[in-house]
């Protein structure tokens, strides 16, 4: 169940230029959190601070149910994330969460693949951990601008997964796009998880359709409420009606949707 908590920051570090990892002490959130869910957070516990006014949605990158700590990884984009990045251990943030429908693992799938691009790698890490714990055969494909932006790279390197990484600048692994890894050798995959820039997810969707692979994807939309009330965060999802699609709320009906049902065109 989603709730609102004022939480202490345990640690914050810049893991790569403009990329930050923040660990937050939020047992109430961790308790109920599932992989793929997110928190909606205000960079300060002082709510009269109106600049910027809205919360920011950020995925859970790690959920430690035992210690009650949650981890997020984010990139500084604009004013909200910039202010977030100025906080230090001991400072407080105001959290709503955990929110949304997370990733699921179909029981009958054994060979699974993760395709993450850029910040889209962040929400996929808990999935990989879970799959490995379930002894599944896992291929992890990640791509980013440069090595520093290959989130959780060191974690993946020590895990029992087939790892392939790409960077645009060639500073690590293959030089190119992560989607270049998607070839016919992978056609025996059962299930796919993806998150990343929209252009990337479209390519992944096309490839998955061609190879008849089901899967899930996590979407990003501008969010107001994070409760399903404001209808600002809608995305186009295929449904059986006249027009063939309907708007769904990314915040509570997503952010994770079946890959084949997402219409990328906005």
């Amino acid at each position, binding site marked *: 169940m989603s709730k609102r908590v004022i939480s202490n920051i345990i640690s914050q570090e810049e893991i790569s230029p403009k990329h930050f990892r923040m660990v937050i002490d939020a047992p109430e959130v961790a308790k109920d959190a599932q992989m793929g869910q997110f928190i909606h957070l205000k960079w300060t516990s002082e709510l009269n601070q109106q600049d910027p006014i809205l919360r920011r949605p950020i995925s859970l990158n790690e959920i430690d149910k035992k210690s009650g700590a949650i981890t997020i990884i984010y990139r500084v984009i604009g004013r909200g994330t910039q202010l977030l990045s100025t906080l230090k251990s001991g400072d407080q943030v105001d959290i709503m969460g955990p929110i949304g429908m997370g990733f699921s693992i179909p029981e009958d799938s054994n060979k699974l693949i993760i395709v993450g691009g850029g910040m889209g790698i962040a929400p996929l890490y808990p999935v990989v951990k879970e799959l490995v714990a379930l002894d599944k055969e896992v291929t992890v494909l990640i791509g980013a601008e440069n090595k520093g932006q290959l989130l959780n790279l060191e974690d993946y390197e020590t895990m029992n997964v087939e790892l392939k990484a790409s960077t645009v600048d060639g500073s690590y692994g293959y030089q190119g796009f992560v989607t270049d890894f998607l070839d016919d050798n992978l056609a025996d995959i059962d299930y796919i998880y993806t998150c990343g820039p929209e252009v990337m997810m479209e390519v992944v969707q096309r490839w998955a359709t061609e190879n008849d692979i089901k899967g899930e994807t996590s979407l990003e939309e501008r969010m107001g409420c994070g409760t399903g*009330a404001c209808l600002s*965060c809608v995305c186009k999802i295929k449904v059986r009606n006249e027009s063939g699609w309907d*708007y769904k709320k990314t915040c509570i009906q997503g952010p994770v949707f079946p890959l084949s049902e997402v219409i990328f065109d906005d």
Partner: protein
Amino acid sequence: MTKPNLAVDLNGLELQNPVTTASGTFGFGPEYKNYVDLNRLGGVMVKGTTLNPKLGNPTPRIAETPAGMLNAIGLQNPGVDHFLARILPLIKDYDFKTIVNISGNTVEDYAKLANKLNVEGVDALEINISCPNVKKGGLAFGTQPEMAASVVEAVRAETDMTLITKLSPNVADITSIAKAVEEVGTDIISLINTLLGMKIDINKQEPILANKMGGLSGPAIKPVAIRMVYQVAQAVGVPVIGMGGISNAEDAIEFFLAGASAISVGTANFINPEISMEILDGIEEYLVEKGYEDINEIVGLAIG
């Protein structure tokens, strides 16, 4: 110390307290049940409802602005029939008054909506006259006294239910609109709806909202809202529900002092989902601190 009375009687609409939630910012209510004891709210103005289901606008639908936000949701809603069949049953037993915010593109739309909503469980209608009148080239009903009155008149003819008319602030003289809708029988006036605004992405060199323009809400517009409540409260005899940027109890109290008999919390729900309860508690504290026994005592105190 006895607790001050918070109940208000708005021309027949009795609210257990003056704190309501603004249409479009609180869904149908249950969206906030994890955060708010819904039974403690005075009223919920549900999401703007239309005759037929509406998909609304493409995204992006919101943009952030200094101390405010723009929205162009485009009235996405499942339509009145769905509301009556599927949603009303889920909310009608809460202690809050269910106030249905109705929107149309013609006078007839509004009349038909009122007719359909004339059912038990709906406590009042809030007529959103900020909608474009398709027969007048898209000019909003709420921008001219005659057009505004024509909507209210048509709705009044369909129902004896309490009618709240919600005014648009995008006008030169808000009192003329208020008087016009009072004359044709609105029981209550609520204000303000959003100010029309826009934001441009200087990198993409285009408006951020897919709809280009959107409605400005949040603290930024509070001074305009207070001014309009102050003007309307003096111009009409019916009670006023004030809203626009209310983010804490102090803001709410400003509205009471300006002449509002009840208030609605809008954008602030997004910032702090628990805020409606904090505002309710804060109002009570203010009354206790200042020695008032009844919320009604402070209504309009700043007028004069």
